[in-house]
């Protein structure tokens, strides 16, 4: 067995199998050891030549070109993707979501309109104006800097039509 700076012929052949005959693809340290071995060893040169012939044999395996229209088929089969920018401006997953919302609102309106519920009925549960004013007066004594809640805002929206009467 030939030895050269730690790399013998058997080791060289193992590395040929792992990294191939082209020493430029080898890690630098092993490449250096192999170059030294090749300089000294006829058997190593024979092994490398055999590895090169084997790789040339592999290269004889031809691959057919992809069909000329394959790229076009790939692109034409593309599902349209929503861009992120467009998605940011349109926060719903699909156009169906707001459409369903509008449909539900319309159905509610039709129901209210057709069920005979009058304005008076709607506001019958509201306090009368005096009680309302008393409530406002009382509120003047209360710190109102930040007591509003979502529920308060909704209640205010109901009171305003009553004031128009």
């Amino acid at each position: 067995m030939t030895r050269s700076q730690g790399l013998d012929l058997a080791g060289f052949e193992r590395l040929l199998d792992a990294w191939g005959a082209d020493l430029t693809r080898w890690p630098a340290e092993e490449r250096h050891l192999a170059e030294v071995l090749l300089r000294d060893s006829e058997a190593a040169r024979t092994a490398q030549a055999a590895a090169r012939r084997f790789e040339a044999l592999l290269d004889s395996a031809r691959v057919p070109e992809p069909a000329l229209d394959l790229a076009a088929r790939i692109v034409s089969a593309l599902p349209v993707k929503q861009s992120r920018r467009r998605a940011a401006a349109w926060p719903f997953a699909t156009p169906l979501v707001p459409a369903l919302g509008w449909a539900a609102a319309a159905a509610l309106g039709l129901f209210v309109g057709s069920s005979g519920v009058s304005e008076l009925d709607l506001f019958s549960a509201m306090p009368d104006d005096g009680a309302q004013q008393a409530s406002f007066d009382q509120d003047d004594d209360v710190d109102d800097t930040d007591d509003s809640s979502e529920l308060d805002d909704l209640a205010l929206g109901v009171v305003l039509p009553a004031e128009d009467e």
Partner: protein
Amino acid sequence: MATLDLQAPLVLGLDSAAFGRVREGGPEEHLTVAADDPALMERVAVGDASAYRILVDRHLRGLHAFVYRMLGNRAEAEEVCQESFLRLWTEASRYVPRAKLTTWLYRIGHNLAVDRLRRRREGGKGPDPDELPDSRRPSSILQDKELSQAVQVALDALPERQRAALVLVHYQGMSNAEAAEVLAVNVRALESLLARGRRELRESLAQFQEGRQS
């Protein structure tokens, strides 16, 4: 060693009318074929079909060669390419440029090819390479023009991972580290796959060459 220039733009008979059916990129950002893969993938992630088209041009031939050598069948290789690029389109937002795009794309192609090979086995069918001679033994192929088929048949006979390792490194020109990443193994495991694969191929093809000489 045969290598493929995976970065070179390719002309593959693209049908420009077909591209018109998907959304093109906005005029504010012009892409050229010189744009690098990560930049193109950013555009693909937001639905830019023109960037996608450039990537298809750039990588289709290499991916097709890899998958064909895994499957030995042109029609199946084309189907896997189509599915691989479709996944590239739909999953583009998950691509992290830490890895080369080819690594990511070839891993998709490899997984899809292995799925098909598994289905072949479960279906009791052997490999189905194109235009096989009557016998699948390489030594039975007597004419020089069939040497290519003999090598493909020998490749088909290798275990899948050995075959994939050899194809990625020898034919696709990947480094051992890149190929290891595609196959999700460490470099030492890849070197072991390569060494065993080369030894088996050498024996198989030596039989073929003996058959030709006798």
